[in-house]
């Protein structure tokens, strides 16, 4: 078995050391270029563009799983650490000040957006999975609408049973006035994942208050209902968490493509005016 799969700490130390060495080398090289009155911006810019293209290849690797191109996890490590180096190189290239030209300003904004979305994405991929696991049953994202429908069917069957078996409308009224809306409710795009869910707390609180009106049979059914309400909470957690995990990529990848195009334009213009071709 591959020990690299188990020694994640060792791998982190390795990449950190390599990145730190590379960062020092970059800073020294940029200083030397400046002191030697060589076109430092041209060199750092070219290297930065090459790094950005190399970082974008990670997505291309995902499309070629049948080729022996080493593990995607190795590519991700490269992507993360070289990404940090690219940020350093960006500042070295820009001279640690805000650019003046329109194109370079747009380019700087896009670069920062790509970098920040990458960092946010990395944080999300480290933060959300564990919480999804602890939230409850693992659900497949594409099946969430179907499972929502299943929960509704199961809840309605319980309410019908309560109505039939207990000759009481307490649970039926609760369903119509509170629960139905909660089951149909879907968390919005900006919903906070895994935080306190006021709607869930409210619905559980209401159900607890109704306990005084239940007969023993209704109490049994209410306990079952509570399980479905918790399943709905897990469903919402899974939806919000998994959606976030997918959503950031929809921002990061198109922005990266724009960055490559804008960078190319910027590079050609820079070469046109420095080399005169």
């Amino acid at each position, binding site marked *: *078995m591959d020990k690299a*799969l*188990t*020694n*994640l*700490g060792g791998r982190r130390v390795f990449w950190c050391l390599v990145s730190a060495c590379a960062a020092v080398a970059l800073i020294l090289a940029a200083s030397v270029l400046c002191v030697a009155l060589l076109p430092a911006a041209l060199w750092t810019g070219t290297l930065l563009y090459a790094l950005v293209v190399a970082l974008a290849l990670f997505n291309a690797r*995902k499309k*070629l*799983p*049948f*080729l*022996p*191109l*080493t*593990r*995607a*996890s190795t*590519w*991700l490590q490269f992507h993360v650490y070289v990404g940090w180096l690219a940020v350093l190189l960006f500042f070295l290239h820009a001279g640690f000040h805000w650019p003046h030209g329109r194109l370079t300003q747009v380019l700087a904004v896009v670069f920062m957006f790509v970098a920040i979305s990458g960092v946010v994405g990395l944080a999300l*991929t480290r933060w*959300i*999975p*564990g919480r*999804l*696991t602890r939230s409850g049953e*693992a659900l*497949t*994202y594409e099946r969430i609408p179907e499972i929502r429908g299943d929960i509704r069917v199961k809840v309605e069957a319980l309410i019908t049973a309560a109505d039939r078996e207990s000759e009481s409308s307490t649970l039926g009224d609760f369903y119509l006035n509170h629960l139905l809306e909660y089951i149909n409710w879907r968390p919005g795009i900006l919903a906070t994942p895994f935080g306190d869910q006021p709607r869930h707390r409210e619905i559980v609180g209401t159900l607890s208050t109704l306990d005084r009106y239940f007969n023993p049979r209704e109490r049994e059914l209410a306990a079952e209902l509570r399980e479905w309400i918790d399943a709905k909470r897990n469903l919402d957690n899974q939806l919000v968490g*998994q959606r976030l*995990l*997918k959503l950031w990529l929809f921002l990061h990848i198109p922005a990266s493509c724009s960055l490559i195009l804008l960078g190319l334009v910027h590079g050609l213009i820079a070469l046109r005016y420095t080399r005169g071709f």
Partner: protein
Amino acid sequence: MNDQRVESLLATPAFSKVDASRFPPQLPLHGVLKNDTKIRSFEEGDIIVREGDYGNSAFLILSGKVKVVLNSLPARLLGRRTSEKKTLFGSIAQLWRNCKVPEARSLAANTLELENRATAQAKIRVGRESRPHVFVQDLSHVMPAHHSVTLAEGELFGEIAAIGRTPRTTTVLAEGDVELLEIRWQGLRELRLFAPAWKEHIDRVYRQRALNSHLRETPVLSYLDPDAIPGLAAQTQFETFGNFDWTTSFQKLASASGRERVEQEPLIAREGDYPNGLILIRSGNVRLSTTYNHGERTISYLGKGRCFGLEEILHNAGNPTPIPLRHSLRAIGYVDILVIPTAVFEAVVLPTLTAERLKDLGLAAALPGKTVEAPVEADSKLGADMLEFMVENRFINGAATMLIDMDRCTRCDDCVRACASTHDGNPRFIRQGPVVDSIMVANACMHCIDPVCMIGCPTGAISRDSIQGQIVINDSTCIGCSTCATSCPYQNIHMVPIRDMGGSFILDEKTRTPIIKATKCDFCIEQLGGPACVNACPHDALARVDMSDVDFLSEWTRR
């Protein structure tokens, strides 16, 4: 099997001398033959048993002759899948060659077309029993190249694989029309128990063909003089525990409590008993447990090649204060064990085990006379919950179990997409399954050590790859009977209707219903880079784990 046929069987030389009174009233000889045997007919060239197959029956020749092929036959001749790594171009070509239609097959690769392919030597035909057989075309032309022996009327074959649950070691073909009595493993077990002549024959063959080589491969016996092995084999006992067809009982117990499941497992050795012998696990898995208040706590699991009771025997040798067995041993599924009696072990093996050699074997703590310390067992490495879960659900059977660390998995499905890309657009696993301690055991073929799916395939389409050891299906010779899918205790084989390249279902010519095929993970046996699922995971959340490697498993789950 009707009563008249049983009576005629009882008159044959194989059974006429068997004393029926030795059989218990609830298991009469007549009943054993009636319920556990079947008459099978084969034609010239039909493959009766295939080398590498797992079979649950032996065959007695009633009439005709069979050829036992002593050399390995080519996989193509046996109707097996021949796995070759793709070329670099072949790998890249998957980009545009993958079909957009799910489960599409070219008609030329279809079973029904196989007979029309001039190059194919293995063909399928429906025999007299209305059962499909794979047969070797032009047997007389093929056979001279291979060394073979002929067995005739009254001879028995296949008994070692049936009793020991080991792969068949040779291929047997029908030489002309043959009538055989197929004896299921249950029937063979009863005959061995109650018919001394059968026991004597089976034991003799077993000792000759299997026992010596197994003893030679056992590390603790590796210092023995090779000439001493046959003598040791003569005194070694062998036993089987559990149900050969353990899938059924396992599925029945799915909803039972952990305690009930443990109690259902046959007890091989009991904690507190005197160690009567060294137990060697020849095949299958066993649970090592210890009494904990009113129940049994699992300490570890042992598989093929491991032994039990050695430390106690070493400790007790010449020790005035002997200790009993510290753990109980229970069979998980079907287990084949060998027992070397303690007295024999002490007389023959112990003198060869010097302190240095015991250290080499990792048994320094068990030097004769030394106090036996509590070993670091799997439960302390894996955690009790994880261990009980893996053992109870029999995931320990996997040689490449797909585990997903749900605390690292971002649910991106890159693994599923990679699997689909490498299998003509069809994913061969489902990213779903039971979860314990944030580790998911996904629905993917585990390439089991004890592959129950391979038992009973009528055409041998499902087999273990001879080079890499994975369980693979030959799509061309799969007849869609679902035997493997039904047998798989983990529901990791899926039957799918196949389509042509245009998306229409390919229909059976007779029944006009869609032809179905068995599909499952093949561990990307033909891909250049190995399993695509593992390689595609950017977060190292997915691993294919050999469950017998407890150290790796514990390191991986606790990283």
